[in-house]
């Protein structure tokens, strides 16, 4: 039996800000052949920053920012611990979190998130709708290793 957990979170706030900035850029920048690419880049940036993909399988973890492109793959042996947390709006933007030089955040919105500590000391915080299910799966996979 193979069990996997996947999620794609889209933070509407980032997308709305991206679209709003794109519209403003399209209205203010002249000439239009310059305005259109700038507006498209702003919208794409909003979508990119507002999207987080997570896939957790038997062989490890795949996390990615944005709806397109390759994911960062973290093998199962590199994961030291997995836990759940609930982030406030400030924490989602990195404010009020315990200081760690090797911390990575993929948290476009407040609410439930997965906290993954790697064996090299890096801490990843990843927004996902059901971090409990993901953490249980990761724990079950680690149990299989023992």
């Amino acid at each position, binding site marked *: *039996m*193979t*069990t*996997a*957990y*996947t*999620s*794609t979170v*889209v933070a509407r706030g980032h997308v709305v800000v991206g679209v709003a900035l794109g519209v403003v850029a399209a209205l203010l920048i002249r000439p239009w052949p310059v305005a259109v690419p700038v507006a498209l880049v702003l919208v794409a940036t909003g979508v990119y920053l507002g999207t987080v*993909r997570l*896939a*957790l*399988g*038997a*062989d490890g973890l*795949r996390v990615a920012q944005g*709806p397109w492109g390759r*994911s960062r793959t973290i093998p199962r042996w590199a994961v030291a611990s997995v836990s759940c947390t609930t982030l406030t709006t400030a924490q989602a933007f990195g404010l009020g979190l315990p200081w760690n030089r090797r911390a990575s955040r993929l948290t476009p919105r407040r609410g439930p998130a997965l906290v993954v500590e790697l064996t090299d000391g890096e801490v990843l915080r990843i927004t996902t*709708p*059901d971090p409990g*299910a993901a953490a249980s*799966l990761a724990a079950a996979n680690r149990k299989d290793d023992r």
Partner: protein
Amino acid sequence: MLWKVDPAAREPLVEQIASSVRLALVRGQLAAGERLPSARELAEVLDVNANTVLAAYRVLREEEIVEFRRGRGVRVGPAVDAPAIARSAVVEAARTYLAEGLRHGWGVDELTDLLRELG
């Protein structure tokens, strides 16, 4: 959402993957418009062929549960009826139960009594 596949099971992998999506919809873990992982990404975590995942997505498209959009991946359709999906899953399971019971010489009344007993 959670995906479960068992290569040793009698049910084909394509149907097992499609069932994971139906179950997630019924349980409210997936909502209309939500994006599903790409076939390649899901195939890697489930350790199956990407064509198997694509075949499961095609089955779900034929059932009008998901839709493919160029450049936007695979998404849950806007008019997905989760209770209807749950009902059809239960009807399918009941048919299997009935067929298995009849095959072993049980009558419909006996099977109904057994269901009451189990419930």
